[in-house]
């Protein structure tokens, strides 16, 4: 009778009838990539929110982000304010960042759990990509929450797992990435079987290097970054193509989140999973109000003033008064007191009011690691041990930024990092910091750089907003999860 009362779901994809062939395991893996493009992640909110803690941008009180974010001082009602106790609504208000990260981790765990029992138990590439993604998600979790539940393929079916501290999360990240490198699970960027958009050996090296840097271990990061540079797999692209549709999956791309309007065009913008096209809505948040967008994050004067006169990055990354809006023919940006500047990076091709879809669709991929970052990270690791090489690497990035074909031309024009350092009277490290700020503004790196350099507590803009190392460095864990955990402890 028990048999008679067990009915297979013949019309559905179930764990019982799935996770067998290579193709099925690959689809499980694709699902693990997918949360990167969730609305709460790089498709919309994440890339905007990440910078809000830094001195690069500000938001207006009363704006949507200002309401939900931590950036408006002295307002305990701000849903996102770091360091304060959360309520259950904040899990939702967190726009699914926390949930999206765990969604990604869970899907990686499924791949790693099911792979040994599938028809392709030894498929190193599937395993490697899953491990890379899991490390990437955990790294995001460490950046924002510090604490969290370490969930692996061993325990992902058991939701009664206690919270742990960072010290337990870092080894998982390190172990996953080192295993990929040791066993050469993934192809190199230049290998014939490498597919654009996926993880490879260099991607893994770059992520592990960033992890070591964030952990304060530059000496461990150095050889990894050096290996990437020596592989000659990557090159810088012209500055006007950085973080734009033209630069999608270019030679500078180490790893980026894929964004496309090729599929599921009219799916609601808030729908993460069900046939969602990761058509980006960043423009909604950051595009100029005069095109109908919200312009919720606004570059600070402090950032804009950092750019030197000949630095092409300023005009390529930021709209100032009178600049033409590239996607609105014949329309120039009109600054106001409230909106002195507007972010241009990442929305260059965007159109807020798309006639067909009526939403701010545009399709720039979101870079997580660019080659420029590899160069500058490497320079940072050898700043004292090999300053000549470090300067050369920084100059590579500067040459591209100032529109010179070679470092020699840059030096000849008196725009090298050494010249800059001398003009400003600052140390090479300080000069490197400024270089990173200009190069990676609005890419979600600045805040974490300031924190790891120990500069955040000295930063006047951040301290004026009430940033406090002990209190506001991390997001609060969702109260619901704490409750849940307590009930099982």
């Amino acid at each position: 009778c028990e048999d008679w009362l067990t009915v297979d779901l013949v019309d559905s994809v179930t764990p019982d009838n799935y996770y067998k062939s290579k193709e099925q395991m690959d689809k499980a893996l694709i699902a693990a990539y997918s949360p990167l493009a969730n609305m709460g992640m790089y498709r919309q909110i994440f890339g905007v929110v990440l910078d809000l803690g830094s001195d690069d941008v500000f938001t207006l009180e009363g704006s949507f982000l200002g309401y939900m974010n931590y950036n408006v001082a002295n307002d305990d009602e701000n849903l996102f304010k770091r360091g304060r106790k959360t309520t259950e609504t904040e899990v939702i208000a967190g726009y699914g960042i926390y949930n999206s990260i765990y969604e990604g981790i869970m899907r990686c765990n499924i791949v790693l759990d099911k792979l040994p029992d599938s028809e392709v138990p030894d498929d190193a590439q599937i395993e490697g990509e899953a491990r890379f993604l899991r490390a990437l998600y955990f790294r995001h979790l460490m950046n924002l929450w510090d604490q969290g539940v370490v969930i692996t393929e061993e325990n992902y079916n058991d939701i009664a797992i206690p919270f742990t501290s960072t010290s337990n999360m870092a080894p998982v990240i390190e172990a996953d990435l080192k295993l990929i490198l040791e066993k050469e699970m993934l192809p190199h960027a230049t290998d014939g079987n490498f597919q654009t958009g996926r993880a490879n050996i260099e991607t893994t090296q770059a992520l592990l290097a960033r992890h070591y840097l964030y952990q304060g271990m530059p000496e461990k990061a150095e050889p990894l970054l050096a290996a990437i540079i020596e592989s000659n797999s990557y090159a810088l692209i012209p500055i006007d193509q950085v973080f734009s549709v033209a630069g999608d999956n270019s030679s500078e791309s180490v790893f980026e989140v894929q964004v496309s309007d090729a599929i599921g065009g009219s799916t609601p913008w808030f729908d993460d999973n069900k046939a969602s096209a990761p058509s980006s809505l960043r423009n909604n948040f950051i595009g100029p109000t005069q095109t109908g967008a919200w312009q919720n994050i606004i570059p600070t004067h402090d950032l804009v003033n950092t750019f030197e006169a000949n630095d092409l990055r300023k005009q390529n990354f930021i709209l100032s008064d009178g600049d033409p809006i590239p996607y609105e023919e014949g329309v120039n940006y009109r600054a106001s007191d409230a909106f002195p500047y507007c972010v241009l990076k990442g929305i260059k091709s965007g159109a807020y009011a798309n006639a067909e879809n009526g939403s701010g669709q545009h399709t720039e991929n979101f870079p997580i690691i660019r080659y420029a970052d590899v160069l500058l990270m490497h320079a940072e690791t050898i700043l004292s041990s090999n300053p000549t090489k470090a300067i050369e690497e920084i100059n590579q990035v500067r040459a591209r930024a100032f529109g010179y074909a070679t470092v020699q031309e840059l030096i000849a024009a008196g725009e090298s990092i050494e010249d800059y350092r001398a003009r400003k009277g600052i140390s090479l490290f300080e000069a490197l910091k400024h270089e990173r700020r200009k190069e990676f503004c609005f890419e979600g790196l600045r805040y974490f750089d300031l924190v790891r350099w120990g500069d955040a507590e000295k930063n006047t803009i951040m301290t004026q907003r009430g940033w406090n190392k002990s209190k506001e460095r991390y997001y609060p864990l969702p109260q619901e999860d704490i409750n849940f955990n307590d009930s099982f402890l």
Partner: protein
Amino acid sequence: QNRTISGVVMDADGPIPGVNIQLEGTTIGTMTDFEGRYEVNLRDQEDPILIYKFVGYKTVREIVGNRNTIDVSLEMDVQELEELVVIGYGEVKKKDLTGAVGMVETEDLTQFPVSDVSNALEGRVAGVFVSSTSEPGGVANMNIRGIGSVNGNSNPLFVVDGIQMDNISGINPNDIENMQVLKDASSAAIYGSRAANGVVLITTKSGKSGEQKISVNLESGVSQVSNSFSMMNTDQYAQYTRDLFNNASTPQFPQSPPAWVEDPAIMATNTDWQNEVFKPGTMTKADFSISGGNDHGTYRASLGYINQSGTIDNSGFERINLSINSKQKRGALTFGIASNMFISDKESSKLSANSFSHMIYTAAPQMPVYDPNNLNGFGAPSIALTGQNNTPNPMVGSLYENTTKRYGIMSNIYAEFNIIKGLDFRTDVNTNFVSRNNQEYNPIIDQGSAGALNERSNYLNKVEDTRFDYNVESYFKFNRTFGDHSINAMAGGTLNVENLLGTQISATNIEEGTMVPQTGNVGTAYGFNRTYRLASVLGRVNYSFKDRYLFTASFRRDGSSRFVNNKWGSFPSFSAGWRISDEPFMKGLTETISNLKLRAGYGELGGLGGNSMPVLNNQILYPFPSGGYQGVAPIELSNPNLTWERVQQTNIGLDMGFWDDRILLTGEYFIRNSHDMLMQSVNPGYSGIRGDNWVNLGSMTNKGVEMSITFNHQSDNGLKQSVTFNTTLIRNEVTELPESYLGGVTNEASHLVVGQPIGVFYGYVRDGLNPITGTQMFRDVNGDFEVNGEDREVLGSPHPTYYLGLNYNASYKGFDFSIFLQGAGGHQLYNMTKQNLEGTSSYGNRLDYVNDRAWREDNPNGTLPRITAKNESSHPGITNDVISDRWIEDAAYLRVKNIQIGYTFPQALQDRWGTNNLRVYVSGIDLFTFTNYSGLDPSFVSSYSQSFQLGYDNTGYPPVRSFTAGLQLSF
């Protein structure tokens, strides 16, 4: 002098041969002949009185007076026949019942010209709550003894001739012989896990031994919308619009009133949209049946047809029913078959959809209905005309097509073998097959540049599904009396398989007039195929001692394939009854108290629902440039430990009859506790799955008292009257919720909180208007000197605390009259329609009193807030038309559901025509409603399926009043 009296004696089915007729006080008498006719000579008797007697019927006494013809109709004598009541897997004598079983009179069911008989049950049985709909082909909302679950549905299980089904929309009301409602758990527990919401048992008509009989019923009628809103005309709307813009501007609204407000050409148009949209509806019904039988068996076949067209374009319903019922007996073996087939075709109007119906009222009056320059010929809401785009022309709703064709065959075949005296074995095999084909088609609609309903491309959506259930039931029946001990028992097992399979396809850019999509325009296409199995063992014993002490115990054990780890559940019940009136000590009182019975019972039931099977989603996308962007992952958690919702019910009942049952009274008290309700509980974020998790948690109680009273009275002059009154007092209370719900779940206006009825209304309390600004002020309930979300409180409950039904019947010399009243109260409705038509948060026409009653500098005593597009109250962050007691209104009502007048032609006349029981009648349905509620229909239930979101009145299909005329006869 010598007088001869003649006439015909009949019952509801026709003439009765062999009725004994006697002149009172004499030995003079006669008998009716084969056609029920009699003739009796009175001799010189003074004040003669005739007595009509027949076994199984109530004796009738007729004062002759100066009549020469006396036609008499006899009524079955319940007591003498020991009326049997169907209780599921058997029947018991009515006097032996120990549970709460509600019985519905067949005549009551056919009084309403509805296709679904559930609509006719409103107000008929205490404890059975029905919210009927006037939409053609509509299915009523129904529950027995209150809402039983937070998330599941509350509809009862229907069992038609042994076939279990979710609804009875395929059954012809005229085929129903009787209907019994198993209200308490001790009666329903024999249906175990399927009976959490009670059971409605229906037996269809069968033939009777005797002459062949042909019956014909014809009925036709008209209907009209019975209640409407008084909306502004163009002048008034212009005034309103001027105020709206002059008093404030926001980014959403232009700075100044639109040009039309002063444009004489546009102002000349004044459309009454309700007048345009609503039209008279019609109804035609015809039923034919042929029945008969002999000693070996009986048969009945019927054909039914109903055609309704609604009061809104594109709404209508048509159904053909064919029913066959036969029973044959050969020796110890009895075979039976009951089969009902139907074909129906329902057309649903977009305008009756809840999301759309308010557009009928908000449509701008200055918009013309037709405009030949537009693509579809309808007037369009251009910006010049309406200033904005969200008052579309409601008449475009007629362009949308939505038709559902269904056909179904429900059949039961059984064989019963009499093994020894009192012991039978019976096997039923039944199937329920229903196929549905739904097609929705939206044409290209161009409402101009501002048209809110514009469809850039046409759209086709098709759902085809087939439900095929089968059921095998075998059981022994034992029924014997040993001296003072009487036992009626059954035991057996059943296997039940439900299968639902089908496909859904949708496509855009269809070649006009075809079903062929242009290349690449198929939207979705998927199939489904679900099978559920249920295996059960069940048994029941009714034991009675000296016919006075009654005991019933039943047990059922169900195993369901819906659950993974908890497949099995047990559902016991016990009940007892004491027929006090049969006790020797009551002997002297039997003249007065003809019946007195005390009953008490307890039982446990189960309710299905939820999903315990893990399913993966294959629509997860990630756009790799190399292609291959489809991913597969779970997106909702499955809970393998899910199991049935549990209902425990205690029932105490008292039946009383006085003066030979001329007054009958039944009272019941019940406590219905629902446990382990299927609810959604939040997952921890780190589970990686964001959907809520179904769990068995939470409890709810329904407590109540039911009472029904019947008076029967017959005067010596032939006037017969009866009054039946029933009422229910009930209270629902949520008693336990999962931790994640404990703060209360607020879903728009509804609140789910322990200690209150499920889904109480929740919002602000008004506190007058701000005398300076004319904006709405709300009460600072918690006294913290600011008004915010913390100041909301419970404003009412959508559940009536009392229901009542009152039926009066009278007949006199061939004329009959009946009136039926129904009402409910103690509840509130959230008048969303009024919120739309009085608030200022959106565009569109308003109720005509808004200008006069709104606060203005020159109207400081206005009761409504100042007309302003800003939609602000006196409190920052709170809108003017936020959910408050302004929209939560008391909805008590009393409704004249039906008045019917009929005339039955004298049999003598009918003899010449060769007919029997020829009756003509006129009937009015939903004639008047007495209420203070300002919406269209105080009996509105909800447009939401979740039971904690009840009472949201957004109008939907308009309430309708109808009149019908009909003819019944048999040959």
